[in-house]
């Protein structure tokens, strides 16, 4: 049927081998940077880890133990990592009094410390805009104001973080369900499931999501050892993160770090399903509004003006 292929003579065999060896050498040279790869990041256990929602209690315990060891190895601090579940009958809501906020950015830095964000490059979940009086158009806000004293008499201040939307576009777009909304309204991320496509970051109308463009770095002494799986455990390179209303605190009845640090009490947080909670009363009695109502996300983060503009307490505007 078929005729035989031309036989390889010695010379062409030599040339072919030379070519193959040269090709392999070039390939090895191209892959050379991979020798610096952090192998602790690519273990079989991590590779086989299941999605958060598919893990049994035992699975989760094993994973938590493993992550505790990984964190200890890296930071010389033995953390306590929990998987704090949402409570029945709870739906968290934030309310922020724009009349009171002085723009001191203490919330920004308290958040970074509490939630073990990378310090270099620094990742911040809260962005405070300095707004000219007479406008609530966020496009007119100044992101990078630096003042020896805040507030400036001509401005008011608008901190923006994850709005924990009822209809979150970020959850809709994620191709692998690495981010979802919990029963208490918090949108969370499984940092071990995220593939880093950053589609959620493009989808968010509030610019609330952050990406780890490189391996996060946190000084060992600054690590907050009270952690939970879905919130402030250290993240890895190449995954998304964002504000989760400090769920490791708030699900256990405490207040978010940004609220605790606020010197003027501009931040209010609580359970909207409890009619006696402070946020329920604010939503009932104050003129509240949400950001970008037109995009249909139904935020759980409300803004209101409690009183006239005016300085209350002075702080540094760093």
């Amino acid at each position: 049927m078929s005729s035989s292929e031309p036989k390889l003579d010695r010379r062409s065999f030599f040339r072919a081998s030379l070519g193959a060896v040269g090709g392999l050498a070039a390939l090895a040279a191209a892959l050379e940077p991979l020798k610096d790869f952090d192998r602790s990041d690519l273990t079989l256990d991590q590779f086989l880890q299941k999605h958060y929602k598919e893990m049994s209690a035992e699975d989760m315990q094993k994973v938590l133990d493993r992550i505790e060891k990984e964190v200890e190895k890296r930071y010389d601090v033995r953390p306590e990592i929990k998987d704090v579940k949402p409570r029945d009958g709870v739906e968290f809501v934030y309310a922020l009094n724009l009349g009171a906020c002085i723009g001191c950015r203490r919330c920004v830095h308290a958040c970074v410390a509490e939630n073990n964000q990378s310090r270099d490059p620094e990742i911040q979940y809260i962005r405070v805009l300095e707004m000219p009086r007479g406008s609530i158009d966020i496009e007119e806000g100044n992101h990078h104001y630096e003042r020896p004293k805040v507030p400036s008499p001509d401005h008011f201040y608008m901190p923006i973080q994850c709005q924990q939307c009822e209809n979150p576009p970020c959850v809709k777009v994620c191709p692998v369900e690495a981010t979802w909304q919990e029963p208490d309204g918090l949108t969370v991320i499984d940092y071990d499931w995220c593939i880093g496509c950053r589609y959620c970051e493009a989808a968010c109308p509030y610019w609330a999501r952050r990406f780890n463009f490189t391996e996060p770095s946190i000084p060992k002494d600054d690590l907050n050892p009270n952690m939970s799986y879905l919130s402030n455990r250290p993240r890895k390179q190449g995954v998304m993160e964002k504000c989760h209303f400090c769920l490791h605190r708030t699900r256990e009845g405490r207040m978010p770090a940004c609220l605790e640090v606020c010197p003027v009490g501009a931040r209010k947080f609580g359970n909207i399903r409890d009619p006696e909670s402070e946020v329920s009363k604010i939503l009932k009695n104050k003129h509240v509004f949400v950001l970008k109502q037109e995009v249909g996300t139904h935020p759980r983060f409300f803004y209101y003006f409690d009183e006239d503009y005016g300085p209350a307490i002075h702080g540094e505007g760093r």
Partner: protein
Amino acid sequence: MKEYLRFLGRCFALSFIGDWRYRLWMLILTVIALVGLHSWSEQLVHGLITTGMTDQVSWGLYIANFTFLVGVAAAAAMMVIPVYIYHREELHDLVIFGELLAVAAIIMCLLFVTVDLGRPDRFMHILWRFNFPISMLAWDVIVLNVYLLLNLHICGYLIWCVYRKRKPSRVFFIPFVFIASVWAISIHTVTAFLYVGLGGRPFWNAAIIAPRFIASAFAAGPAIMILTLQVIRHYTRIKVLPGALAMLRRIVTVSLAINMFLLGSELFTEFYTQSAHVVSAKYLYFGLDGYSALVPWIWVSVFLDSLALLILFTPGARTVRWLNISCAMMIVGIWIEKGMGLIIPGFVPTPLGEIVEYKPTLNETLICLGIWAFGALIYTILVRVTVPVLTGRLTFDKDLPMDVADSPEPALIEKESLT
């Protein structure tokens, strides 16, 4: 089965055989692809910080090239439609080169998405928890991969049959050809919907984006085909009848004209209304608050597209040479307009009004060049193997053609004018 493995082995061997120009071309492409691989290795180790992307502009060159190439892939298979619906037999043999281009383009698309991932090691998560049908990216993964398989099947089956000197059974490929041509529209529509579906990005959240995608793809895709076909007919025995080029020329002209019309409609809506949504378009075309990195690019694109259209409409310029020039111009023009010109302004300013510009780094540029070179390498090999099969020089009962004499009969090279 054994015969099929032998076929693959012979194709592999054949891809190393060629004259010095072929070898030089392949060598250059291989070197560029390896440089790209080196840069990707750097990126894998240090993270996407090696790119110019930031939290503010979180997609860049990778997604821009991806978007452009989806269009190329879609349009390449679209040449099928006139062949089978209008029985334009002169295009018959050429369709296969279009589908091969689609294969190469889709492979490049998949590579561009892969290098854009922060955690490519977790890609298989898509198999365990797939957010279908809610996430448009999930849709895109499906339509692109199915499209790749469809085109691989069609080309592979036809070439295999010719190689075995069998008559292709219509049942095994005609239905797939039709599915592929409809599917071609779907891949580009779904890719447009990736952006269109984002309510927080008004620059993308416009219904006109999907039709514009299709129009620009059906200009750039056949334009690339026109240039490729001429390389093929200059260096091989495959005959490209002038009628085929004329047909492609008509497709390109109409598509480019529609694209320009849709662009005009979009610009009118943005700039006449002057609503808050105009900021991104303003940034793109005129610059915003002193930031204007994209302005020269987009005007080059507008200029190239308009000039290409003008040439195509000029009766005195109906020669192959002018056709080539206008095709080259519109490919570059559409690459700018649909790549950087679409992706970057979607992020500038951010949803909170901050302006951060994007400038690609050397490392990510090298990765992009590497993927383009790899795609060209794949396409060259596919064509290299297909040509001798189609011309009957490589069949299962013949020796491997060791020479490079696939060159055409001289008469065909002469310059023809298009009618």
